């Protein structure tokens, strides 16, 4: 429906309503929750990547400290089983039983009166292990003679996947030229600043688990399944969460362990993860190796792509995504925003003795973008075409939408070609390229890189049904209540942990009722307070929860129209909703305030028109039909300078032209882009979980695992295009993840460009740490 209220809230650059509590130190993070009689947990974790547990000695525990082992809870587990045929499943234990499969796996849980004592007590626990050979790479895992991580499996492969587009062979033949390479994205993760945190309380017949999660209802389901109890006995509360980025979008054994310990001990049990544990046990991500070839004509027209995707999924399949998520996503989106139709791909999600692999902002798209964009750069260099022009000529063109991609997705629209024109003019691309070429001749290693992509966002029923996941993340829910004082509460099944959804949902739904922001409250995170839904991930919350909230607001508006028309003796079509209330078009003196209208609806049922019931509540689910996702697009360009002596890369400029459809709040959109780009810069230059050959994680502090600082991230310029989604409520598209997708490809392209005066080099591995850059400098000089 069209809403024409003034002032419009959608599109307004309003400041966030949630800010004051964070600015005054009143964030409601789990660590700040205190319950009477609360005790504190600490986990004893495996020091071995792969070993049998041969004995556990708890005799040294101080008096009054409780302890639990895998044997105590052997009947409980978290299952992340795919529906794909042939998927090799393994339950993730709450505490390891008999065998450990990664360094950091929880083995014993101790519970003491305070966290200091719990930490001391954990030190007294002695566990005997019989080490087994560790499987620490995909290559090793897939060898015939590799040790089996799960002994009842036939190999260390979760499930192989393959796809070939119709006409692949002929399209490949039509492109007689090719470039190819092995593209490596290092293992890293979202690393939110707040570690995981749980506070479980079992009281009467209710298991209340407060946990820092992005997916409260799904965690509730996982806990109910694990503990074999009805869902209505479990309540999950996720209040303020200090960053998620996907790390907090899985159910974790520690969440179940705290609930089990609380049930056993009869007191609330709190666990605050420390940073070392976060590296050792919070799910990792991104670890992709792609072998790929791009086939093209003499003119530089791409005809086909051939690829193999390897992902190192760690020791267990995670709930709810399963171990197939990253491989499947990469296989679908590897062809990127390009128009070719020949595509053949194989995928191998592989089990290793590492931390399980979960979601991280962008899920597989950063790796897919890296591979296709590096290949396109190499093709352009091979053909002597400008890199932006090579992209323009191969993109899906405006008249092609909706486009059935080579990867089997339907791109529903966008502004790919336009984004190139806008970028070129904005940054004076031609002048910049010419100046850099001049500077390189004078010996400076400066370069420019670029990446263009289309991102599937807000994918719902149709898409997740294809993916074989146990739960189809099809929809989100919003329940709206306009109370008797004229204030609106939106209870949404998503979670907001930095995305500003307390503001944007209020803007998007409040506008329907003409309500100013200070009369709208958004609540989320408590499964007893909000109806079922999946949570916040996959750039979907504004689209799906926003859509649900807006539809429910329309339901309420329709009812208010009937009541107001009756009271004002006017026709429903003639009513105007504004901040002051409801008035009649053409006769403003005929009006009723929203507060009065609501008071009457609740408290004077005798005044309501016939057939209209009291109260103002509506609940809607929304799955953004047709549910295959709506596609955003963006072009990123960056410039670097490389220090030839140290290999240090300095990122000087970064520009983004993006199109996420209709924007609810441009200020928040820009904040999301900046944050995504900064994380992508981490992907490109700094962040890597490094394991040694025994499966020991060597990067367990912020001194070994570097996050981008304010000195590493440049000013990030943004320009918006707004192509409304043809399918979603209000024309919205999802945009939370996009910023993180391109920087790896941008920085790699820029470094390669910077080294071009030294010689030809193929930059195909990130992060570009100084050591790796020095190797590329050496290679460039060798190649000349």
């Amino acid at each position, binding site marked *: 429906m069209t809403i024409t209220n003034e002032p419009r809230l959608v599109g307004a650059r309003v*400041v*966030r309503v949630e*800010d*004051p509590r*964070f*600015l*005054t*130190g*009143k*964030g409601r*993070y789990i*660590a*700040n929750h*205190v319950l009477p009689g609360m005790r504190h947990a600490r986990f004893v974790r495996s020091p071995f990547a792969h070993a049998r547990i041969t004995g556990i000695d708890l005799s040294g525990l101080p008096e009054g400290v409780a302890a639990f082992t895998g044997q105590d809870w052997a009947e409980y587990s978290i299952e992340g089983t795919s529906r794909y045929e042939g998927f090799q499943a393994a339950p993730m234990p709450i505490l390891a039983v008999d065998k450990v499969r990664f360094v950091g796996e929880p083995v014993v849980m101790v519970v003491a*009166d*305070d*966290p*200091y*004592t719990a930490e001391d007590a954990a030190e007294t626990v002695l566990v005997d292990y019989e080490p087994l050979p560790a499987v620490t790479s995909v290559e090793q895992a897939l060898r015939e003679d590799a040790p089996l991580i799960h002994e009842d499996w036939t190999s260390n492969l979760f499930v192989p996947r393959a796809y070939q587009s119709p006409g692949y062979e002929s399209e490949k033949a039509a492109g007689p030229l090719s470039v190819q390479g092995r593209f490596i994205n290092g293992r890293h993760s*979202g*690393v*939110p*600043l*707040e*570690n995981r945190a749980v506070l479980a309380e079992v009281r009467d017949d209710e298991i209340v688990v407060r946990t820092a999660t992005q997916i409260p209802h799904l965690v509730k389901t996982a806990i109910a399944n694990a503990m074999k109890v009805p869902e209505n006995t479990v309540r999950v509360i996720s209040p*303020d*969460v*200090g*960053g*998620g*980025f996907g790390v907090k979008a899985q159910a974790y054994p520690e969440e179940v362990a705290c609930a089990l310990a609380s049930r056993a001990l009869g007191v609330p049990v709190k666990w*605050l993860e*420390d*940073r070392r544990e976060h590296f050792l046990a919070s799910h990792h991500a991104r670890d992709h190796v792609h072998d790929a070839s791009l086939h093209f004509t003499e003119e530089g027209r791409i005809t086909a792509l051939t690829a193999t995707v390897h992902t190192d999924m760690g020791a267990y399949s995670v709930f709810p995504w399963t171990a197939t998520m990253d491989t499947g996503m990469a296989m679908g989106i590897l062809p990127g925003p390009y128009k070719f139709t020949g595509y053949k791909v194989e995928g191998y999600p592989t089990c290793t003795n590492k931390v399980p692999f979960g979601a991280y902002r962008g899920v597989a798209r950063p790796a897919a973008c890296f591979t296709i964009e590096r290949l396109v750069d190499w093709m352009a260099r091979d053909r002597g075409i400008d890199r932006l022009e090579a992209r323009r000529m191969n993109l899906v063109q405006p008249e092609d939408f909706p486009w059935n991609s080579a990867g089997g997705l339907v791109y529903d629209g966008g502004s790919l070609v336009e984004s190139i024109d806008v970028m070129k003019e904005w940054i004076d691309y031609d002048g910049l390229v010419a100046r850099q070429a001049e500077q390189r001749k004078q010996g400076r290693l400066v370069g420019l890189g670029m990446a263009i992509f289309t991102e599937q966002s807000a994918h719902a029923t149709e898409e997740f049904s294809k993916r074989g996941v146990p739960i189809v993340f099809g929809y989100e829910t919003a329940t709206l209540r306009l109370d008797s004082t004229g204030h609106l509460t939106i209870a949404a099944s998503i979670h907001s*942990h*930095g*995305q*500003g959804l307390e503001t944007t949902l209020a803007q998007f739904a409040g506008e329907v009722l003409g309500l100013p922001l200070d009369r709208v409250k958004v609540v989320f995170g408590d499964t007893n307070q909000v109806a079922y839904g999946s949570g916040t991930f996959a750039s979907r919350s504004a689209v799906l929860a926003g859509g649900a909230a807006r539809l429910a607001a329309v339901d309420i508006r329709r009812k208010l129209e009937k009541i107001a028309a009756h009271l004002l003796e006017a026709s429903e079509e003639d009513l105007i909703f504004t901040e002051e209330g409801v008035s009649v078009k053409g006769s403003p003196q005929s009006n009723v305030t929203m507060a009065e209208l609501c008071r009457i609806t609740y408290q004077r049922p005798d005044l309501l028109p016939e057939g209209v019931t009291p109260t103002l509540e509506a609940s809607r689910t929304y799955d953004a039909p047709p549910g295959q996702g709506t596609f955003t697009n963006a072009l990123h360009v960056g410039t670097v300078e490389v220090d030839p002596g140290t290999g240090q890369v300095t990122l000087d400029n970064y520009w983004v032209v993006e199109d996420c459809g209709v924007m609810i709040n441009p*200020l*928040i959109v*820009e*904040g999301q*882009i*900046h*944050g*995504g*780009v*900064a*994380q992508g810069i981490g992907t490109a230059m700094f962040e890597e979980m490094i394991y040694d050959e025994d499966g020991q994680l060597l990067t367990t*502090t*912020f*001194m070994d695992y570097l*996050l981008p*600082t*304010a*000195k590493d*991230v440049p*000013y*990030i310029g943004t320009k918006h295009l707004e192509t409304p989604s043809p399918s979603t409520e209000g024309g919205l598209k999802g945009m939370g993840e996009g*910023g993180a997708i391109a920087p790896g490809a941008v920085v790699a392209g820029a470094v390669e460009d910077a080294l071009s005066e030294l010689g030809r080099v193929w930059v195909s591995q990130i992060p570009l740490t100084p050591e790796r850059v020095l190797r590329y400098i050496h290679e460039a000089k060798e190649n000349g």
Partner: protein
Amino acid sequence: MIDVPAEGQVTVEFTVNGVHHSVETSPRMLLADLLRERLGLTGINLGCEHGYCGACTILVNGESVRSCLMLAASADGAEITTVEGLSRNGELNPLQQSFQEAHGLQCGFCTPGMLLTATELLEGTEGPLEEDQIREAISGNICRCTGYVFIVDAIRRASERRDA
């Protein structure tokens, strides 16, 4: 409530956000834990507990300090400011207002430490600040959400506001 049973409790006297406190505590108690658990100053967020991320930054005698690395006992006699001490009578101070206006925060976890680092910077300088100065000053505070762009804008805005 952390109540550490240990030999030899010590008494720590200090002023926090203008209020004098005398607290008996264990010698091994960290200042961050004491302020959070005993004084209820939960605006101090702990992100790494090894002094790197800066989320727990507070001002001790006007200088920024990682409260996760300092023992409570060593704060005896100190004048401490936490994020709870920045706003007056429920009103955001100009720096806090600038953060809201410029969208200088997202999840909010780094925000208290960022505000106190910025407070130290603003108190030690005059006039509108340059981008480089601001980036240098906050380079020890990790923000995982914002990419720093709007944090820099917020602090510059506050520096312009103080001279207006």
